[in-house]
């Protein structure tokens, strides 16, 4: 049985409970044990632009908490994945910086010795569990559906952090995971593009224009839903979908699902168990078809 420290970050446990519900159920079915760690904080991502040292120390503290339990970290948010992974790399490369971090951590009764690996759930499903093993867990084929994958940014980039497990320009891991459920992958224009979430707080209008572009591209394909793996991407495409519609006079009604929700449905979990009631854009057609 694989065991990981379950790192939720800021957004998932409050605004992405459907993601968390589905991830926990799916992991359990796959014999992946997710350990909740007391005291995890923000990863440090929002602090880096203001003070990179504070961001690094925040990330290092979270890594130290996992290391104290002898666990690697499993993440759901792509920005957390990038921030924690980058911190781990820096602390291996820069002895002077590591000495400073160690001193700060010691003041909090912690140590970090560089032993923690950080893995996004989607990467674990693709790389560690494997597509074939996932296929064996499918009891309800989703072969009637076509899903548009949204990879987001920090799951793949900067690629030097991720040992080349997937190609940042032409990724296929999420597509393979979608196909494991029997569903079709629906490709679309500018599939690799960012959600715009990085500048939502600074310039909402510009951020939502970035969001709009992808919504425009996906709806023209007729995909049944967009499938993604980061809570902030979901905030942009789902929670802000109506805002984009009213700002720009468009109409999408495009369901947005977290990949573990899709996998869980294929494993035979109910829509309720996968938290679909918490999805803002109701995937009515999908639920109806599944209930047959």
């Amino acid at each position, binding site marked *: 049985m694989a065991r990981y420290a379950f790192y939720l970050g800021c957004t998932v446990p409050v605004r992405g409970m459907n993601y968390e519900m589905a991830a926990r159920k799916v992991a359990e079915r796959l014999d992946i044990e997710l350990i909740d760690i007391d005291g995890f904080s923000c990863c440090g991502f929002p602090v880096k632009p203001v003070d990179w040292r504070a961001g690094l120390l925040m990330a290092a503290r979270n890594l130290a908490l996992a290391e104290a339990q002898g666990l690697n970290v499993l993440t759901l948010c792509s920005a957390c994945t990038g921030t924690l992974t980058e911190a781990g790399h820096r602390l291996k490369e820069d002895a002077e910086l590591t000495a400073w971090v160690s001193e700060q951590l010691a003041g909090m009764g912690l140590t970090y010795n560089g032993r923690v690996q950080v893995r996004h759930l989607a990467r674990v499903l693709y790389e560690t569990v494997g597509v074939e093993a996932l296929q064996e867990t499918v009891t309800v084929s989703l072969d009637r559906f076509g899903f548009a994958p949204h990879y987001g940014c920090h799951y793949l980039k900067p690629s030097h952090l991720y040992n080349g497990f997937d190609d940042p320009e032409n990724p296929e891991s999420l597509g393979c995971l979608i196909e494991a459920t029997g569903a079709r992958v629906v490709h679309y224009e500018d599939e690799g593009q960012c959600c715009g979430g990085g500048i939502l*707080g600074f310039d909402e209008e510009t951020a939502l224009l970035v969001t709009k572009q992808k919504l425009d591209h996906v709806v023209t394909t007729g995909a049944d839903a967009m499938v993604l793996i980061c809570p902030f991407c979901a905030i942009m495409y789902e929670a802000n979908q109506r805002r984009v519609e009213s700002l720009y006079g468009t109409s999408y009604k495009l369901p947005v699902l977290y990949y573990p929700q899709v996998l869980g449905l294929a494993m035979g979990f109910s829509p309720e168990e996968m938290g679909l009631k918490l999805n803002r854009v109701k995937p009515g057609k999908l639920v109806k078809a599944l209930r047959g």
Partner: protein
Amino acid sequence: MDNEQEIIIDVSSFVPQFRDEIAAEPGGEHIRRCYSCGTCTAGCPVGGVTDKYNPRRIVHMALLGMREQVLASDFVWLCSVCYTCYERCPQDVRIPELMNAIRNIAVREAHVPQTFKIQLEKLREHGRLYEIEDYENERRAEHGLPPIREAVAEVRRILSATGAGGKA
């Protein structure tokens, strides 16, 4: 005529050492490598929807020494940190990290966007961007999810140890 006036710049105000200042800041080390090819701007998702953001222009301004213009403007805060240009830059300038280095310098000179002030306040109060107190934990319990304890003291300690808490 208005446009012409906008593009006339006062060269005497340039700070040639600005590039060195940026290169000394973690993330900014590779700024001198840029030869202005524009690969960054061509693939930029933000630049694709607005003229307000143009990474090649910002790097060029920084290299010229337009210190005050770069630090006080909105430019560097419009990078969505998607790393598309980071992957494609033929000179490995690492533009998102470069933007971050400039942001850190801007913050030290009190140019802090409101959104980051709000986020820092949240971190000081809750140790995270979205609070999790009794109400949120009750909601989590309704969905079968375990409670979460905010690590407020620990995060405050980090913010004050680095001086980050006092910057915004």
